[in-house]
């Protein structure tokens, strides 16, 4: 979309987020350019998930501003038109366990306005894209961890979001579905932007186009290009964030 080019997808300034006595983020800045996959790494409890939620416009910063596609989302959260351009994979699959895979996808397809004619078949594309055909009619409650993760990926990319926020998106996937998911996410990056949180050097080398370390509430860039798995592992180890 042309509009996406006018403003950077994400521009965060002086972000502070505290929970009671705990200050998780201490005034960090982040700019993300279109078509990149920015990875955020750091030890457990460093605030990676918190940061992702702020960038999704579903949590509010204590101080500082988050601009998503040029719109200030700090005070009141993201508006509906901005939310329509964001997709998210979180720790929880964010689905209804009592609905089938297809029903879940259809529900969320209905909640996102269709942007073009291709949208009509987007449930089918999500099912095919993430290899959910076998389990499409099964209730989510009966799915294995891996299938649930695929459903979460399918749900998050259903509306072809311009900004995709990924919190450990490949956990629990077997080798085949992992490759498939990486391919899907790679395709997405040609049209959109990604922010990735991961502990896994293999994930980082497969997806990230740059890496930031989150430590003591601040961000620091530690790689500005793709890195291989060995280099990623070393970086994680240096941060004390290796798995």
């Amino acid at each position, binding site marked *: 979309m042309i509009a996406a080019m006018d403003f950077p997808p994400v521009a965060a300034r002086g972000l502070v987020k505290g929970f*009671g*006595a705990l*200050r998780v983020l*201490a005034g960090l800045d982040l700019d993300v350019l279109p078509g990149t996959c920015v990875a955020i790494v750091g030890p457990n409890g460093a605030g990676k998930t918190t940061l992702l939620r702020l960038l999704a416009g579903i949590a*509010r910063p*204590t101080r500082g501003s988050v601009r998503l596609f040029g719109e200030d989302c700090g*005070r009141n959260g993201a508006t509906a038109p901005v939310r329509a351009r964001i997709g998210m994979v979180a720790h929880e699959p964010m689905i209804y366990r009592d609905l089938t895979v297809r029903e879940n996808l259809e529900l969320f397809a209905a909640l996102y306005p269709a942007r073009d004619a291709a949208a009509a078949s987007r449930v089918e594309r999500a099912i095919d894209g993430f290899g959910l055909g076998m389990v499409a009619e099964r209730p989510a409650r009966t799915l294995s961890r891996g299938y649930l993760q695929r459903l979460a990926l399918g749900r998050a990319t259903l509306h072809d979001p311009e900004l995709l926020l990924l919190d450990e998106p490949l956990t629990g996937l077997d080798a085949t579905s992992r490759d498939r998911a990486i391919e899907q996410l790679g395709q997405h990056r040609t049209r959109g932007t990604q922010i990735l949180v991961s502990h896994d050097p293999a994930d980082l080398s497969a997806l990230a186009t740059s890496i930031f370390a989150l430590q003591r509430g601040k961000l620091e860039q530690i790689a500005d290009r793709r890195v291989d798995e060995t280099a990623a592992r070393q970086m994680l180890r240096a941060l004390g964030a290796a798995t």
Partner: protein
Amino acid sequence: MTAALWLVFVVVPSERVQGVVQRIFYFHVHLAWMAFGGFVVTAGASVAYLARGSRVADRLAEASAEVGLVFTSLVLITGPLWARPIWGVWWTWDPRLTMTVVLWAIYASYLMLRRLGGRDEVILRYAAVLGVVGVLDIPLLIVAIRLWRGIHPAVMLSEDPDAGLTDPIMMWTFAVTGVALALLFAWLVALRMQFAALDDEVEALTAEDLA
């Protein structure tokens, strides 16, 4: 200032109409009004918090609700103390009594939500929503209770404190206690807000030390 007014209050009420317990009325009526007023303050501050997200508004809402709960509790305690010798019963489902007890419950639930929810911003917003909802309930409550007791008129509805307050000294005492209690209310709220602000500051400092 408050202390001075307290003194006045202790000195003045030497007149007795309904016996010693009548004195309680000087407190009781005003306490009730303050408590109701506190609710309105909480709701107003809640709206401000939802609109602007200012911490001060939230602190005001909480402080006002807390002091309001204490005042409502005092109303509920002083009421029966007076009612027992005068009406012969501890409790009656008089509209005002019923109203007060339900208000007390709404205040309590508001504070309970805050206690159980922790100090997360989301809970602060939830509490603000409840503060607004609570005050909207009040007019409905008043109408419902009036209608309810109207259908089955209570025996002792002719509770009329002003009828006994013809003596100028009593009027004066009544007015003075009103002012005193209003100041007390404001003072307590201010104190409570200060306390909350300090609490936040301590947390911020601790957080900086940790970082």
